[in-house]
């Protein structure tokens, strides 16, 4: 596991959207499993979790496991952090999960200057009592 710095801000489950939407995401993350909402009506993936699928507005979806392989959609190295908890520089990124139709805001680790289009895979880092998804370059060995 990639170690992050100890004073990382903690992700608070339930701080986005309706209560009960995100606990399963974080429980899976604690097991190093990346999941995302998938609509049972239209099959679309989406993120962040909402009460209804943003593609068909069905209120019927479930978390399904992601393969965790993705491509950097955009990436920007942060040199001046919004709060002192973050050790700079760090690459903030949007990663699109390959073939799954969803993406998320995340950070890139083990790559000092990641580029748009780079292939990455999910890894996990501890932040307080929570485990956060991050992405690292796909190992070519």
């Amino acid at each position, binding site marked *: 596991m990639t170690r992050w710095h100890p004073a*990382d*801000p*903690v*992700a*608070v*489950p*339930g*701080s*986005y959207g309706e209560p009960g939407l*995100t606990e399963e995401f*974080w429980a899976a993350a604690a097991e190093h499993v990346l999941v995302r909402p998938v609509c049972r009506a239209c099959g679309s993936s989406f*993120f*962040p979790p909402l009460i209804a699928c943003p593609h068909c507005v069905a209120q019927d979806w479930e978390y399904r496991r992601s393969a965790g392989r993705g491509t950097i*959609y*955009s*990436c*920007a*190295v*942060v*040199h*001046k*952090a*919004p*709060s*002192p908890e*973050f050790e700079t520089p*760090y690459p*903030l*990124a*949007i990663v699109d999960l390959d073939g799954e139709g969803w*993406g*998320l*805001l*995340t*950070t890139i680790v083990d790559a000092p200057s990641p580029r*748009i289009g780079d292939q990455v895979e999910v890894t996990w880092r501890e*932040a307080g009592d*929570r485990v*956060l998804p991050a992405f690292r370059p796909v190992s070519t060995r």
Partner: protein
Amino acid sequence: MSLSDIAVVGVGVTQQARRLERTSLQVSLDAAKLAVADAGLTFADLDGIAARWPGPGGTVFLPGSADWAGMLGVPVRWIGDSYPQGVPALLDAAAAISAGLCHTVLITGGQAGVLGGGRVASYTQPRNEFVEPFGAFTAAHFALVAQRHLRRFPHVRQGAAEIAATIRTIGSANPDAVLYDRGPFTAQTILDSSGVVDPFRLLDLCLASEGGAAIVVTTVERARDLRHRPVRVLGGGMEWIRQQYVDAVRYEQVWSIGADAAARAFGMAGLTPSDVDCAQVYDVNSFEVARQFEALGFCDVGEGTDFAASAGIGLDGKLPTCTDGGLMSFSHIGWGAPTLKIAEAVRQLRGTCGDRQVPGARVALAAGAGSGAQYYNLVLLGTD
């Protein structure tokens, strides 16, 4: 009545500074007093207010939430209370007045006593489980958009620095600007400033400062009896794609945000971009200024910086832009900042801007928010 029967008749801009020993509510009230006096009115003449209001049961929505009717002692017929700022507040008020719900509306807001110690206003960095732990913040969302644009159009980096230098140099000459007398700036000054989040340097980005801004809106008919030449609402448009600063922002969705709103606004006004005498675009960063020239129809995608260079966006250019120094040098006061854009547009159209006056300005554009915010709005204002 239609939009063009509505006019801005009062503007109030308080002192703007890095930090003020005031509260958001105090500066919002200060600005309100200035705007009402500027119009030659009293609070008793108002019958509509767009400002932050308490919710049910007295719930307080910070910053600057208050029982404005109670505070001013004016029972009103209309309030705009969702997110009252700049263009949306003006267009909502104009619609309400056109519909006969009220006749004279105060729009006010600002921030003070909320910054300090390197803090940013809380709404720019939501305490959200999918944002906060990754170290995202307002400028970073815009950066994720700019990075994709830069990959398509690498020359934009230099051109954006030239835009920032021009706007900051205008601000340096404005004694009311927070960054008065800090210039002149060159593109190299911008590029040599410290890095914040790629591709932005510190001087590519707007200020975070404090102060208040307010305007008063009424019918053109009532405006004829007031102090200043009325400034008409000629056209306007708004677009929202998603909430701000939470969802991963998609360059392809947001780079041209505002294009549809602009087409509608120009259509409503019977004008084209070449009719605009000054552009108070929303300069949260230098790339956004170029982006708006594209979305607003001044040029094609990828040409925003070239347009700025060839047309000229300084006070002596063909399209003087951010003529008070903008959010980069004049002030950025959070949700009050969009109203600053309208205030400057109105002053230019009145011809009262002194050294920074655009000679003969008849049509002005004012705008709010941008690509990383996932919403955008603009208004075209004019004098007869």
